[in-house]
């Protein structure tokens, strides 16, 4: 029996409402009239700005239809885990689980428990596996968190984004800064010792002062982990439309980079390690699950639209939640019948790509360069049986040029971007695709 490590990503595509910048696969289940009206809304959308996070920790009550959808979705997820467990449990053990979204904390906590029970039942879960759940301020209660703890979750990633209420409103977040802090304290009192806060900069209307304040407030909470992202404009988002119309007042690239480097300066001063372009942690608390993405390690994506890199293939599930459910819970689905198959029925054959060795090498390099420690060239040769310098012979002069300009560092053992290099990392990474 071999002992390959496997990461599981489990996608919960539901949110109270969709944020203005968000292009992720998620459905706002409380926003009235946003094409998701069937889920209805009782107290939701109107009060969503700023005053969300009512006493019971739920920004809105869900309709019967929404609750039924959560139930069915949970069953589908469990079926998919069951499927892959039968396929891979013998040769893999799971050492990280990441429940992401969407906002996984909007569905009943018991469903999360069920999913994790299914995981433990279908796979071998390693001791000390890192099990993360994403949540948003204003969706948490003490009971919910206790259920999470009991089901084995030991890491929480919270989408705070900013501690400025004005910016939160611009982003279309359901919470305010006070709620964020309250939620953080709830997490701590429930016993979570590994918490990440997501922060965002380059928000329309952002300036350096506001960003410094948010950084101060975030670090004052002493989270173990911080992710800090420059706002990315994605198509099919309200922000994108506004941008197209010229209504979005975005900070300049210069300011964006200043904010980015300010964040690094502050976190280093506070004793955090900057280990990936947008991630930092106190020593020993790097996110092991996310590191897999940057190390060409295997992971299975469970849930609607989730992506996998598994057994040399990249593939992803049907994105539409209803179709996803039907493919896994429909009449024609039986785990037994499917046991011959390699991909779960929620994967469409056209969404499967078998990586060539070139693909693998290129992904290993360009994702690996996201890590501040870069890539280990000895590991490269060991994995691919060829030396980095031989494979990318043609790029070496260009790399030397970049090195001269202090954008990267390259020696026989290690290749990494410098801090200056990170700012223009795409042009360096593009050499390897």
């Amino acid at each position, binding site marked *: 029996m071999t002992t390959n490590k496997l990461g599981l990503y489990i996608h919960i595509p539901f949110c109270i409402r969709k944020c203005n910048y968000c292009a992720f696969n998620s459905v706002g289940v409380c926003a009235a009239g946003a094409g998701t009206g069937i889920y209805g809304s009782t107290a939701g959308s109107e009060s969503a700005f700023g005053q969300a996070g009512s006493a019971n920790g739920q920004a809105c009550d869900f309709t019967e239809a929404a609750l039924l959808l959560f139930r069915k979705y949970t069953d589908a997820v469990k079926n998919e885990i069951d499927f892959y467990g039968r396929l891979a449990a013998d040769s893999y053990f799971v050492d990280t689980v990441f429940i992401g979204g969407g906002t996984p904390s909007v569905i009943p906590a018991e469903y999360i428990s069920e999913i994790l029970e299914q995981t433990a039942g279908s796979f071998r879960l390693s001791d000390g596996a890192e099990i993360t759940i994403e949540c948003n301020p204003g969706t948490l209660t003490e009971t919910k968190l206790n259920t999470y703890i009991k089901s084995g979750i030991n890491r929480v990633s919270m989408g705070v984004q900013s501690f400025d209420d004005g910016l939160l409103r611009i982003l279309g977040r359901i919470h305010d800064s006070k709620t964020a802090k309250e939620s953080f304290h709830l997490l701590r009192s429930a016993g979570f010792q590994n918490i990440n806060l997501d922060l965002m900069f380059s928000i329309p209307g952002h300036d350096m002062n506001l960003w410094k304040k948010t950084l101060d407030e975030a670090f004052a909470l002493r989270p173990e982990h911080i992710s800090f992202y420059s706002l990315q404009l994605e198509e099919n988002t309200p922000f994108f439309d506004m941008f197209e119309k010229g209504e979005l007042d975005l900070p300049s690239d210069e300011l964006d980079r200043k904010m980015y480097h300010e964040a690094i300066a502050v976190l280093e001063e506070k004793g955090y390690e900057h280990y990936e*372009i947008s991630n930092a942690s106190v020593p020993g608390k790097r996110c092991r699950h996310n590191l897999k993405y940057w190390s060409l390690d295997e992971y299975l994506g469970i849930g609607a639209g989730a992506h996998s890199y598994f057994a040399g293939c990249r593939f992803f599930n049907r994105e539409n939640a209803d179709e996803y459910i039907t493919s896994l819970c429909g009449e024609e689905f039986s785990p037994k019948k499917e046991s011959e198959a390699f991909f779960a029925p929620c994967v469409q054959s056209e969404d499967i790509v078998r990586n060539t060795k070139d693909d693998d090498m290129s992904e290993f390099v360009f994702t690996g360069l996201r890590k501040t420690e870069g890539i280990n060239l000895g590991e490269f040769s060991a994995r691919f049986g060829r030396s980095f310098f031989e494979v990318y012979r043609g790029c070496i002069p260009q790399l030397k040029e970049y090195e001269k*300009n202090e954008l990267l560092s390259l020696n026989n053992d290690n290749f990494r971007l410098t801090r200056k290099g990170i700012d223009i990392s*795409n*042009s360096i990474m593009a050499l390897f695709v």
Partner: protein
Amino acid sequence: MDSYQKYIRNFSIIAHIDHGKSTLADRIIENTGLVAKRDMKEQFLDNMDLERERGITIKLQTTRLAYKAKDGNEYIFNLIDTPGHVDFNYEVSRSLAACEGAVLIVDATQGVEAQTLANVYLALDENLEILPVLNKIDLPSARPEEIREEIEDIIGIEAGEAPLISAKEGIGIEDVLEDIVKNVPPPSGDAEGKLKALIFDSYYDNYKGVVIYSRIFNGKVKKGDIIRMMNTNKKYEVTEVGYHSPGPVPCSELKAGEVGYICASIKQVRDARVGDTITLDENPTEEALPGYKKVQSMVYCGIYPAEGEKYESVKDALEKLQVNDAAFLFEPETSTALGFGFRCGFLGLLHMEIIVERLEREFDLGVITTSPSVIYRVVMNDGSVQMIQNPTNLPSPMEIDHIEEPIVKADIMIPKDYVGSIMEICQERRGKMIHMEYITETRVQLHYEMPLNEVIYDFFDALKSKTRGYGSLDYEFARYEKSSVVKMDILLNKDLVDAFSMIVHESKAYARGRFVCEKLKEIIPMHQFEVPIQACIGQKIIARETVKAYRKDVIAKCYGGDISRKKKLLEKQKEGKKRMRQFGTVEVPQEAFTAVLKYDDNK
């Protein structure tokens, strides 16, 4: 006149661009029953896609048609098409020389235009019978009576009987055909005399070699004859004669008065030059037909493969194009910026654009073209003369006594409301007005003398833009004239990029330098460092812009679901880079080369 000649009509159709020449040709072909209607591609004679798209005829096609006239006789029509652009005037004149008559189409909504006149003059030079026809009478804006008068006033030919037609709708075509029968004189010439045949066009066929289009003026020619080109003195054995109808139909012989094709295993079209006279080697005629001219390239530019490794493919393609185009010249050249490429000579700007487009479309090759240049006559201190068409080769100013540039005579026809603005753009382009005449109450013809380098730069675009498309231009070489032109160089990050060098008039250098720098600033992407763009004459900087260094090119989030998408993004970025040219440390998108030449309305 031999009796067979009585029933032959050799004619061309002449018109201003867009006045409906190709459409009428289609109708004539259709109405004589040569091609079934369902087989008609629109505009039959324009058989290159490019021609059909641009609505202009570049390469001639000649067709023999049979027409049963109202007098009960069957006539043979040789319809000789002419290219419809000012760049190809010489070819037009040779085609016309093969005819006895010309159908002159005038757009009944627009009237006489510059090219209408230019073509009429060419036809009159050949003593052709001119048959005016008013086209587009189906349009509500047609003014046939006014236009009739216009034709009589301006051209001075009788137009009272001119058929009113709509080539598009097929109205009045019969009238045109009868008009041809009645008014185009039949050919003459002695079929038993010494062979005298005019080459008015040719094309290359993979199997037959060069196919010559010829009009026999005297004598006859058949398979097995040894023919001689009187101007190049080359000899060939005829392998086939025939006519196009519309595909090639071999026949036993071609005799005086007829139009057809001759094949003689000729390898290159330049060995069968348009305008040359064919005679028999054994029994030659004493005198060649008049009017032969060796075509002269007027405009030159560098053509470089967009991807360096495509050099051989570009060379092959240019060779193939040249086989069919005697007016197109090329030779290898090297640029420090662009590497290995070719210096190419063209009749004019349109000719150049056509060649470049054909390279891209027919051969699927990406090419970079450098600033077009005219040929300068450089008189050195020691009195020797150099003809320079590549700015890079301009000798040092210390050695030059003076430079002369080609001046053209330009005839511009415009609606009168635009006179002011057109005189302005002519003046800006160093034009000298010779005179101005009111052709009608509303239309004006301006006669200018203008340096050719101004005409090829952006004059045509400016004219079209300022007159909302109503202006038309015709030009021909006049002479060389002493001029204060200088070489302007462009430096990118302090490095000279020779491909951007151009020869400009001193008075225009500052404005041009500023324009090029501004354009390049728009087009050159941000680099990791500041990129100064400078225009200079010798050591003197005359304009400067700076492309700021970019600050941010990074993907903030890249998790499990993002990897494939981000990879595509990086691939796209890399692809974009491929289309860039690396000049020293600076990457320049290929469109930069054309962008600096474009007419800018806002300027």
